[in-house]
């Protein structure tokens, strides 16, 4: 059994989750503070979660393709994205971002605003407030968002196959490998990949639940 789909999947999902973590939290903080157009901004960021992944992949192709503005700009630096490993990462980021964003936003909104006001009136800088108050008190939500977006990125299929293709050893992930195996009537191979994906996803979600439950018993119970 060729192991490259497993490695490519883990690399893609790992890289995408790192990016999603920062972008998702940043967007959550930004949208929470918006005074106008909050609903619209939220809808735009959430859209990839509800659209068919093929539509997301199609838009990514249009946005980053060789004829697009961005595509032509990148081409000047000899960078092409379509059908590369980077494209798989971008596809995974876009589809997993809404999960990170929504759970982080929910966690931030649970924090009593008086606590933030108190810290600010007592001279604590906004940066210290973010690291020492916002992040620790939103920890469970952010952790959940992290696991959900990682597992979503692990299983990403539609946008990836549209935008990054299904090139063995380059962009073929576990989920696209299953598709290819079924197309080639190789149900055994498809089954093996399916079992591996289920095992990984189950492991991470169980880990998340265990960690959140353990933390909840310790400190920072809301009253």
């Amino acid at each position, binding site marked *: 059994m060729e192991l490259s789909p497993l490695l490519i999947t883990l690399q893609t999902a790992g890289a995408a989750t790192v990016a999603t973590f920062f972008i998702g939290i940043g967007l959550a903080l930004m949208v929470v503070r918006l005074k106008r157009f909050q609903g619209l901004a939220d809808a735009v960021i959430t859209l990839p979660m509800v659209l068919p992944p093929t539509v997301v992949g199609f838009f990514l192709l249009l946005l980053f393709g060789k004829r697009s503005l961005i595509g032509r700009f990148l081409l000047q630096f000899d960078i092409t994205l379509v059908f590369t490993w980077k494209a798989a990462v971008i596809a995974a980021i876009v589809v997993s971002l809404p999960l990170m964003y929504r759970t982080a936003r929910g966690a931030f909104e649970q924090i009593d605003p008086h*606590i933030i006001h108190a810290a600010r009136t007592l001279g604590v800088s906004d940066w210290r407030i973010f690291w020492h108050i916002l992040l620790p008190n939103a920890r469970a939500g952010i952790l959940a968002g992290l696991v959900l977006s990682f597992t979503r990125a692990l299983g990403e299929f539609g946008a990836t196959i549209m935008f990054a293709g299904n090139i063995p050893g380059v962009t073929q992930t576990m989920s696209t490998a299953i598709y290819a195996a079924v197309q080639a009537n190789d149900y055994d191979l498809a089954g093996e990949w399916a079992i591996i994906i289920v095992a990984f996803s189950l492991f991470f979600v169980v880990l998340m639940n265990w960690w959140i439950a353990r933390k909840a018993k310790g400190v920072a119970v809301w009253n």
Partner: protein
Amino acid sequence: MELSVKIEKKLRNFTLRADFSAKDEVFALLGASGCGKSMTLKCIAGIETPDRGRIVLNGRVLFDSEAGINLKPQARKVGYLFQNYALFPNMTIAENIAFVASGDKAEKKRKVQANLARFKLTEVAQAYPHELSGGQQQRAAFARILAADVELLLLDEPFAALDSYLKWQLEMELGDVLADYDGAALLVSHDRGEVYRLADRIAVIDQGQMEAVHTKHGLFQDPATLAATLLTGCKNISAVKRIAPDRILAVDWQLELQVAGAVSEDVRFAGIRAHYMEVAAGPGENTYAMEVIKVVEDVFSYLIMLRRQGTEARPLRLELAKDEWQKIKNPTTLYLRLPAAKLMLMEH
């Protein structure tokens, strides 16, 4: 320590206008809930931004709409005691204080120890906020504010969330803290007793409009406006007409009354506190035969609703100590005197 505030902010139902200054004292804003008094504090702390005006603390301009100055809350040095104390839930009490204390490591440590000791929190220094009682949480919030070197204390309904026994204990503790504290403090409350016991001067806010500033004795003796009279707890109020330079007709009570001193042409209401009225032996000045409509037994007194005999007038509420009421043997009619000196007249 000197604070001067003159601000305006449009709110949903009215426009808030606050204009006052306070100097080394406890200054109270008394108002019903939703009158704009908490909003005033939030504007001073920089949590909310007024539409117009100027806020100056100890010569530092915190906000000036014309000069385009609007300091961040961090730069204002104004401590805000929130109703729910707003302790950081992920930090112990000692960490809560250390997190906001200024200075180097040794200085921080000294401030933490000093404030823990001052507020009798040393034993719970390593506990988390949710493990503390309401009283301890409030003391911790105070310790945290004082460790941050603030120049002004803002107290937003500090006892609203407590039951009456704990409330009294904390009120006494707060009294001690304020007596110790040599800066100015602003207290916001809807409780007349609380502001009377804690504050030196009081301003009434009604629907966002700030009324004249009174000393606490002045406010309770002569509230001057209907809103202030109601907020100071007066239960008997009637619309009035001036019928002579020193006589009024209380329209709602259907009583003609002599008042002490001259009556303004613009007088609109009169009020009298329930425990300032007297039961008289027979007719006399401002004394009328009244019919007893209802008697309610309170904890330490009787509340007696009285209406002028032979009318359908609005009843007056009389409060009498239990033994006094029992002495006159539960009558169905009595003579009630409204002492002229105790009548409060209002133009607004």
